[in-house]
């Protein structure tokens, strides 16, 4: 199914004349293209019969949408309070060391984008690290080298 067709399908779920399909449509587009380039925003807008400006206003409001390219893998470390008190900052620093880039950047080989995020809703299993949207729980700084190896290995 093309992106256009998938968006039409998702539109049919919601009340007519609503713009509810914009979030699922952007999610579908991002799953297909990795990030939301101006061309992809236009594609989504055309499929929804709205303006690209409207679609971009929504895409830029929500944290999970990427308006710039990201690596093959996305590593998101929760640094909100429950994770912070058990060492989330050390986890971030271990990733920065292992990947050779700062939070908010992508490793030089383009493989991994690292970023810090607000509460992921896994506070009892801190520190939470979402890797390509899947939660790893109880992550400690000492666990990070193995995760980095897993994501960048094979070189």
């Amino acid at each position: 199914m093309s992106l256009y067709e998938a968006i039409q399908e998702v539109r049919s779920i919601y009340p007519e004349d609503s713009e509810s399909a914009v979030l699922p449509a952007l999610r579908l587009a991002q799953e297909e293209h990795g990030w939301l380039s101006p061309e992809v925003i236009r594609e989504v807008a055309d499929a929804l019969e709205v303006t690209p400006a409207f679609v971009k206003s929504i895409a830029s409001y929500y944290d999970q949408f990427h308006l710039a390219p990201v690596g093959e893998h996305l590593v998101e470390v929760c640094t909100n309070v429950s994770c912070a008190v058990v060492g989330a900052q050390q986890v971030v620093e271990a990733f920065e060391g292992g990947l050779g880039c700062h939070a908010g950047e992508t490793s030089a080989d383009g493989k991994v984008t690292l970023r810090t995020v607000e509460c992921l809703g896994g506070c009892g299993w801190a520190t939470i690290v979402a890797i390509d949207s899947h939660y790893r729980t109880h992550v400690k700084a000492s666990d990070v080298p193995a995760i980095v190896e897993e994501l960048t290995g094979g070189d």
Partner: protein
Amino acid sequence: MATEVEKIVFAGADDRDLTKLAEYEAVGGYEALAKARAMAPQDVTEELITSELRGRGGAFFPTGRKWSFVPSKDQIPKPHYLVVNADESEPGSFKDNEIISRVPHRFIEGCLITAHAIDSKHVFVYIRGEYSGPYEILVNALEEIPKDVLGGVTIVVHRGAGAYICGEETGLLSSLEGKKGWPKIKPPFPAIKGAFGQPTIVNNVETIAAVPHIINRGAAWFAGLGTKTQGGTRLYSVSGHVVKPGVVEAPVSVTLRSLIYDHCGGIPDGRRLKAVVPGGSSAPILTADEIDVSMDADGLKAAGTMIGSAGVIVMDETVSIPEALMVVARFYAHESCGQCTPCRESTGWIYKMSHRIVEGKGRKEDLDTILDVAKRGAGTTICAFYDGAVGPYVSYIEKFREEFEALIPRDA
């Protein structure tokens, strides 16, 4: 020892995989739905009113009364909607994650009973975008349900995309409608004019998950489990410095001390307790000698804080309160939706001030400036977000002022 409590929300989930329809039916699943459908919708609502179930998302509103506000189809014949708030994003709260992951069918059954009570055929579950695990479990559970159980009701699982404010009910509705998650001025309340301009009930996941039990075992039984002001049990999300963090199902009147020491094994490695946030990050902080307090809404209100979403964040003596405030202030600055000036501006500036204090670059007047700005803005915005931010700003500084002052250079 921890007070033994009969599990309600998680009943059966310790012994069986209740994510499977057959397992859920083996413990009486979907019997409450059949019972409710044999009742008139207003009788189901009456039962909820008698049960004293109160909203578990944080606002504590009586659930049955909320349902009773929906006008009848004779008055407003257009579609009525049930929207379930599964956008759990309050730092320290992770109970809805656990409910959907462990007892999705109980949650779905609660949705279908609620839809019957408010005469709705359309349910939207707004689940936060980050919850991809619970999302898959919920979608798989929905696929298992036979058509006759759904009874013509459609349940759409709508994924958010990363915005705390979408947990605020009108912000959630804006987001569901395909807009930015901007809260709306109330009134009109969603029960009259909600999703797509139609009568809508917005309930939290934990609230909905309690509904099947109320129908099965009766409102009087459920009310009897609780206190005068609320029925049932409560799910506490306990995180931070305890031996056994996790979601604890306990009486609504359990004390904070009992939660920490009896249910969660106390503070690890013999360290001392320093402070506790009892109701998610927006709840004012309590010091170690303020934990002999009942977790029901009245007990915490008397202690100057709130139950909120019951996210209990435990901090031992290794925690720097100024650093904790900086983390919390960064969160509010990041998540302010930007509609109202007092919130948008204050959250940003208070984060900057809290950050420079931690860096040793604070100024003498900073603490009083934060307190002044925080208190002036409270109550001046469309939604409760900023009031929630004021809770930590004021309480962290007022209760741990010396710790902040120690970081501010004397000659600043």
